[in-house]
């Protein structure tokens, strides 16, 4: 009887932690979306990776997921609590979007194609490419006046960053939202 009661208390505790985790992850609280691991530890306790795991399995039914973006390269083995603390957590879609859905999000097919070209070119050049080179590549398929507007939009949204030497890099949103190796494989495997 006592064991059953303890079990119920534990379940209630986890239900409340999952709710809190969902609130923290869904509602933007900083300039950038997502929550740092150390913030989650502060609010949910040291077992927050476990709480996020349960939340992730709940979200699966809604085609959503808890995405973990580690600082630097993702650890090859089970991440330590320190690595989790330094990581950033987001809620992202689990499956893909259809072109119709992207229109509702305010993205035209041109914008998405441009983003695909920009990101894949930067990846193929070891994560850094001159802006002029990318602009030249985009001008092949997009009207000239759109190229600059689109690149600036990708920078503003956090997909790419530009330094003072007009070099473009991948930024935080690409790391959070795009499966880079899948994109490259799909591009190379596509039949033209």
């Amino acid at each position, binding site marked *: 009887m006592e064991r059953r009661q303890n079990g119920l208390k534990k379940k209630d505790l986890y239900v409340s932690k999952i709710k809190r985790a969902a609130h923290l992850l869904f509602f933007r609280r900083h300039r950038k979306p997502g929550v740092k691991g150390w913030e989650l530890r502060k609010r949910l306790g040291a077992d927050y990776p476990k709480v996020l795991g349960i939340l992730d399995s709940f979200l699966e039914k809604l085609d959503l997921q808890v995405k973990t973006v580690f600082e630097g390269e993702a650890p090859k083995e089970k991440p330590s609590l320190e690595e989790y603390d330094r990581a950033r957590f987001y809620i992202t879609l689990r499956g*893909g979007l259809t072109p119709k859905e992207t229109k509702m999000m305010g993205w035209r097919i041109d914008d998405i*194609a441009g*983003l695909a070209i920009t990101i894949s070119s930067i990846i*193929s050049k070891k994560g850094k490419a001159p802006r002029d080179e990318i602009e030249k590549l985009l001008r092949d398929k997009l009207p000239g006046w759109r190229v600059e507007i689109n690149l600036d939009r990708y920078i503003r949204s956090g997909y790419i960053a530009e330094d003072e030497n007009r070099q473009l890099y991948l930024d935080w949103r690409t790391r959070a*939202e*795009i499966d880079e*190796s899948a994109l490259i494989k*799909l591009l190379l495997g596509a039949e033209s």
Partner: protein
Amino acid sequence: MATTGQRKRLGREELQRIIDLCRAVEERGLDPFLINVEDLIAVIREYFPEWKLPEDLVLDAETIQHLASVIKMQSEWVKHRSTSLYTDPFLLEEKIRRLSREQLGTIFLKSWRPIVEMEQISPHSLMQAIRYWNELIPMDERWQKTQFIEIETGTATRNELVEQKVLADKMFSEELDTLWKELIQKTGEKEKIEYWDFIGASTFEETVRRAYLTSFLVTYGYATMEIDRLEEIIFLKPYKKPVSFDKKQVTSVPVPISFDDWMKWKEGRMD
């Protein structure tokens, strides 16, 4: 046959050429494998026995340093090529050129997992916003507040400045001196006086002012404090001459002066 001088000059030129070549690869992001490291090391080794002067040795070290950074770039290049993310840029560019915009977009959507986030206002924040709005002064009133009032310049007397509290009617040191003499006088034959009996005045403001000045009397060595911890009474003991605290251990004693304490003292009910 080249003389030693000629050989040294030739060697310096060779080292400078190597440095320029390495710099070009580092700064312009060229393929680091354009440099044949082995050949260049052979050149550096060939001229090394010639170097006796410090500036030549520095040039030699600089060359080695630039070559080392090219080797590092080569190792990074190999590391990148061995990862699953490596793609030949030309091959990828060719693919991108051949695919239509629609095909590119569809491919991208298969690897894109956009972040989901919400914005929602809560009843609590709505209430806070309404309260803020109600308290917000209308723009025309706010602008009025920042208007300037033109006042003609004139002269002010010392008394006027004292009245406006810009100047004190006495110098601070004069005030301290007067208070010190008062403390000596009030203590009289006795060695000490109770703190509240000395600082207490007819108004609370004056009491606070006296307490403030008394703290300087103690700090500057005109008087000392004695605390009866059992009875919780503070006494003031004036010195006949100011004492220097240079070699003594000095402690800081905060004494709270509240309106209630002052009222109790005034009513003669001070514990």
